[in-house]
């Protein structure tokens, strides 16, 4: 009966396809130094600014037998992280070099997903120390800083010049300049205060401005305390006394940028990308040539930025770790970092480039940014970063909304952070 036979063949084939699709990936190699060479896969979030083509081309020209292939993940950080986590939990060897957010480094390292790097092989002393520190966890180096990022205080130079004022170095000076905003029919100051990662960044900067920090003892204990209350009070009071406009409670980066560029803000805390956009000729941009930047203000002296940016790491499950490490070495040369910065506008981790005439001409904010970056602090380096940031957002937001007094919010936050830090054991 050929008809019946055909039927079984079809069913069998379908079953086989379904079953084979369920087969798990092979176990990754892992331990024992960086070994194995060959073509490598470089995985990172979508390259919207052009950070990678130069280094990839340079590598591929020099290593025809170990071509690197860029695999782009979604642009949204959450989606990137879940792609990495899914892949690494399955111990897959498909990712060799990974471009990871600075705040994921500790978590990935603690999970055993990253290859520990040999510090002597990288020019760490040439790099900005705070940026390098984002790659350290429990005494080892797990990732190389590629591009880094810090906050800047954007201000309306035209308004301040007309009034004969200097840009503020402290929050008190900033507050004293707020009447100028009123006279010019503007709002005074804004940052990122919606309930999302940007709030953690802005809160951390306020705490650091008062000389404190979020966590201490290698991220195992909440620090906070008095400086945190002072920082949070400044933000919460700012909403009450009008230093910050009410709508700023809904601001992420883009809302604040638009308010500044449409001439509604005197001061704005934001990332360097705003500088480029605010310098362009565009009908919606009313501040071209009328603004400048200074490092973030503090309470008594200069402030301190949170650190953004991207680290490059090698997967513990890669079968071509030697090639991967070599690729990291190439990416962290001065020449490649400069090429990356020129092409993309992302600030490099290499310190000297901030004085490089070609760079400064193209990105005039670099000297101000470097000053901020040298005083910058990484966000808590803890494997429980996601829990930490979500607890911080919860209480800081409640304080900004006036639902909790700042000291109460800091108390609650301290309790939660300590609980999170000790839960793993």
């Amino acid at each position, binding site marked *: 009966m050929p008809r019946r036979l055909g039927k079984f063949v079809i069913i069998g084939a379908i079953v086989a396809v*379904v079953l084979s699709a369920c087969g798990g990936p092979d176990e990754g190699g892992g331990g024992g130094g960086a070994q194995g060479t060959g073509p490598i896969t470089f995985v990172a979030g979508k390259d919207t600014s052009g950070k990678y083509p130069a280094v990839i081309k340079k590598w591929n020209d020099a290593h025809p037998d170990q071509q690197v292939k860029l695999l782009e993940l979604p642009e949204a950080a*959450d989606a990137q992280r879940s792609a990495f986590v899914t892949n690494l939990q399955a111990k897959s060897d498909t990712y060799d070099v990974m471009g990871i957010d600075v705040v994921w480094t500790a978590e990935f390292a603690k999970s055993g997903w990253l290859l520990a790097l040999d510090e002597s092989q990288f020019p760490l002393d040439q790099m900005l120390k705070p940026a390098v520190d984002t790659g350290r966890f429990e005494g080892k180096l797990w990732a190389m800083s590629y591009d880094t990022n810090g906050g800047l205080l954007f201000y309306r130079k035209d308004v301040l010049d007309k009034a004969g004022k200097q840009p503020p170095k402290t929050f008190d000076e900033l507050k004293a300049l707020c009447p100028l905003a009123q006279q010019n029919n503007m709002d005074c100051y804004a940052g990122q205060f919606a309930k999302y990662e940007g709030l953690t960044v802005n809160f951390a900067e306020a705490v650091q401005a008062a000389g404190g920090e979020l966590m201490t003892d290698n991220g195992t204990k909440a620090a906070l305390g008095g400086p945190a209350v002072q920082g949070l009070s400044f933000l919460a009071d700012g909403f009450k006394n009008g230093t910050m406009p009410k709508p700023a409670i809904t601001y992420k980066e883009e809302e604040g940028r638009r308010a500044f560029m449409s001439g509604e803000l005197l001061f704005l805390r934001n990332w360097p990308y705003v500088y480029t956009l605010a310098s362009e000729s565009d009908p919606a941009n009313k501040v071209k040539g009328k603004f400048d930047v200074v490092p973030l203000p503090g309470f008594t002296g200069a402030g301190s930025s949170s650190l953004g940016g991207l680290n490059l790491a090698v997967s513990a499950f890669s079968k071509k770790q030697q090639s991967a490490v070599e690729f990291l070495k190439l990416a962290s040369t001065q020449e490649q970092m400069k090429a990356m910065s020129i092409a993309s506008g992302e600030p490099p981790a290499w310190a000297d480039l901030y004085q490089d005439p070609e760079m400064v001409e193209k990105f005039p904010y670099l000297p101000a940014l470097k000053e901020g970056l040298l005083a910058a602090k990484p966000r808590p380096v803890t494997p429980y970063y996601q829990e930490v940031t979500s607890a911080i957002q919860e209480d800081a937001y409640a304080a900004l909304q006036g639902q909790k007094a700042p000291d109460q919010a800091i108390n609650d936050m301290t309790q939660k952070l300590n609980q999170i830090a000790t839960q793993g054991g």
Partner: protein
Amino acid sequence: MATETVRPGRVRRRPGPVQTSEGQRAEARLAFYLLIPTGIVLAVIIAYPVIRAIWLSLNSDARFGTSEFVGLDNYIRAFTGTGAEAFWSAFVFTTQLTIVTVVLELVIGFAMALIMNKAFTGRGLVRAAVLVPWAIPTAVAAKLWEWNFTPDGIVNQVFRTDILWTASHWSSFWAIVVADVWKTAPFIALLVLAGLQIIPSEVYEAAKVDGATALQSFRRITLPLVKSAVVVAVLFRMLDVLRIFDLPFILTNGANQTETLSTLSYKESIQQLHPGYGSALSTITFVYIILAAFLVNSLARADVVKAQGGR
């Protein structure tokens, strides 16, 4: 006489053993074999994840160690433990959202369907226009409404208000309701329209001859005859809103107690990598949705039976 009611879909022809020929039996076997691949696919993509989630929900979340069986601890944590505040807040918010949006969508969607069912010039255009929001992917619609609801967005401009829509609980609630109703009232309209179009016009003509007013024929003819379509539409929408994710996630990201059951599960299981607790939350959501669907379905059925029995 409820005993006499024949429920549609319950009529089963009993196969008499005498009537089955060899050919029919072979055909039934073939049908069975042909369904096997579908069965396997369903088992892999539906049964496995559900069972796996239930199993995970009974295990602890040791992030950097090994997880172990903890029984119902994760559920207790959600109901009365450390997660209770967040869970009940999400539970209440999701339920409120479901009731308000489904009622509004039903009323507006029904009105749209009645209009689209009338014969007038430009009816095709109206039908297409009404369906546009439904054709837009939810994430895109959410982004669109996010811009509309910004402090200097179009909503505040048009109504000359100064409301910070995403900065407090109730304004966020209404922002989500508006965005959801805008997007899915057309869906209800579509289903109700399909129901309306199978009502024969003779029934209305007969009512007219009997001297029924427009309101009477709406209540006595349209409503009862379109009811099954409405029940289906309400069920669909209810299941959708109970697991609503994109809109609140993009519009408010859970600020001001606008976390829904789905955004909460996502944050626990994906962002914070607590597969155990996250699975417990998903399982609770799953059971809640089944119960809600069952409740609405049996209420609607009882109503149909009562109506028929009383005739």
